[in-house]
């Protein structure tokens, strides 16, 4: 299967199953038009038949000699298995199933000090009442992870909420407890936190920069955009409170090395700021160079919802952002935009790419009550509860169900050109908006594919520079 497209003056061809990316000239591209069917496969298995079709198509337009020269290159790529290469991954499907639980989202606070309008957690309490995790349950969550991670060495724990800094003492206790077990169990914990920043102070910044391998700092971009949708409980905007704190945190974090220098300033865009590339640029102007701004996912009836109608405008904006970023990069002023980051050489192995997000299988979420859910987006959906850290129980039937939700378990994804980069999307969104974990959420798919096209185009543009 191939996927080909034109963007910003480049003719780009992705050979899906080998991962090869080719930049081709117009004639080459037109030949591919002639010999590719609507699914991205070769129209004829016999290359001679392809050749005849191509000659017929170009007759009277380009000389036979010239066409045969280009077609020769097409053939060479096919023979080298980097064009229309076969899908022989299904044989690995058995490697994409059940795995130990090695990552956890720990909800230390089902409470929040902001009232973001698009919050999927119903202003922090997931519809279940405001509650903080106690240290004892937090430690049991660690025991749970130690037990079910079996042979996996690298364990991940994300402190999440609501707003995790509302329960900072328990965060510290849980970290200390986990660290005290690392040697005995031969594990390495990687802690991360997702915070809205309101409660950051010097002490917390120092602590987080020491203990968290990655920090996600929420901020939506321009002040008026952020404050409109991310007000505090008293209705005032959050921008002025948090921006200086983030700047301080990031500046101090900069001196860390290796695993502990990661951070993201991340925002959400909605229908109200479809010109979100301005928010990305604004975040960069504030001094941040690790930026993620993502589309809101919500029911269609919300006034801020992104629906199919908004897609063309958003595509345009992504393209604009990509071109702006190329220009900055060329001036040596580049920054990372999370969704345009793509590693064409040393990315994860194909198995990892096809395995999916791992929710309910290698990743779970734990609530302040100690209940285990497939992931943070499932929290509060009673039917999906799948265990408890209090008695270290796991519903293995549910776990197996999620293990099967890999790319080859999803009909739409199996035949999608983006599968090695998207990994099958978000199961929770699929369930909520497409009605089934194994279906795909169309709007998310379209956005994901557009971002990928832009990300690859940026690579093409930068390769030209070299």
């Amino acid at each position, binding site marked *: 299967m191939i996927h080909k497209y034109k963007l910003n003056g480049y003719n780009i061809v992705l050979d899906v199953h080998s991962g090869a990316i080719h930049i081709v000239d117009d004639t080459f591209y037109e030949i591919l038009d002639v010999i590719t069917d609507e699914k991205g496969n070769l129209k004829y298995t016999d290359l001679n038949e392809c050749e005849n079709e191509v000659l017929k198509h170009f007759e009277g337009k380009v000389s036979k000699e010239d066409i045969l020269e280009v077609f020769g290159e097409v053939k060479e790529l096919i023979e080298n298995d980097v064009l229309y290469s076969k899908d022989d991954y299904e044989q690995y499907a058995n490697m994409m199933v059940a795995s130990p639980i090695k*990552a956890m989202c720990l909800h230390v606070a089902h409470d929040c000090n902001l009232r973001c309008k698009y919050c999927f957690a119903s202003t922090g309490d997931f519809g279940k009442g405001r509650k903080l995790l106690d240290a004892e349950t937090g430690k049991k969550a660690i025991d749970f992870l130690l037990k079910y991670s079996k042979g996996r060495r690298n364990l991940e724990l994300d402190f999440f909420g609501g707003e995790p800094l509302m329960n900072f003492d328990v965060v510290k206790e849980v970290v200390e407890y986990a660290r005290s077990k690392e040697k005995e169990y031969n594990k390495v914990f990687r802690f991360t936190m997702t915070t809205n920043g309101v409660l950051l102070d010097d002490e917390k910044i120092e602590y987080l920069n020491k203990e968290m391998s990655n920090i996600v700092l929420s901020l939506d971009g321009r002040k008026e955009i952020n404050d409109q949708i991310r007000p505090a409980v008293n209705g005032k905007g959050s921008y002025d409170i948090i921006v200086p704190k983030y700047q301080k945190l990031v500046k101090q974090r900069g001196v860390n090395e290796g695993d502990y220098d990661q951070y993201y300033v*991340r925002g959400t865009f909605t229908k109200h700021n479809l010109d979100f590339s301005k928010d990305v640029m604004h975040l960069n102007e504030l001094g941040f160079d690790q930026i993620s701004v993502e589309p809101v996912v919500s029911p269609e009836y919300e006034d801020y919802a992104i629906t199919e109608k908004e897609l063309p405008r958003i595509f345009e904006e992504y393209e604009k952002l990509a071109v702006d970023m190329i220009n900055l990069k060329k001036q040596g002023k580049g920054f990372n935009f999370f969704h345009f980051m*793509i590693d064409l050489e040393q990315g994860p192995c194909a*198995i990892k790419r096809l395995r999916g997000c*791992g929710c309910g299988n290698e990743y779970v979420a734990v609530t302040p009550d100690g209940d285990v859910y497939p*992931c943070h987006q499932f929290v509060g959906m009673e039917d999906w509860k799948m265990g408890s850290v209090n008695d270290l129980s796991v519903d293995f039937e549910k776990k197996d169900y999620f293990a099967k939700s890999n790319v080859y378990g999803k009909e739409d994804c199996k035949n999608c050109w983006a599968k*090695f980069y998207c990994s099958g999307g978000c199961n929770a969104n699929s369930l909520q908006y497409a009605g089934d974990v194994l279906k795909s959420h169309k709007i998310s798919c379209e956005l994901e594919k557009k971002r*990928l096209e832009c990300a690859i185009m940026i690579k093409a543009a930068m390769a030209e520079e070299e």
Partner: protein
Amino acid sequence: MKHIKTLNKANLKKTATTGGCGECQASCQSACKTSCTVANQKCEK
């Protein structure tokens, strides 16, 4: 080749035979947190 330029070594198939150890980061794609598209993650091997 005159009409095409390949940007990368296409080694995806090879990685399938050697990979799958599961030691790398989980890859949540949701819009509410770390949101890791797999393609920008690192292999731990």
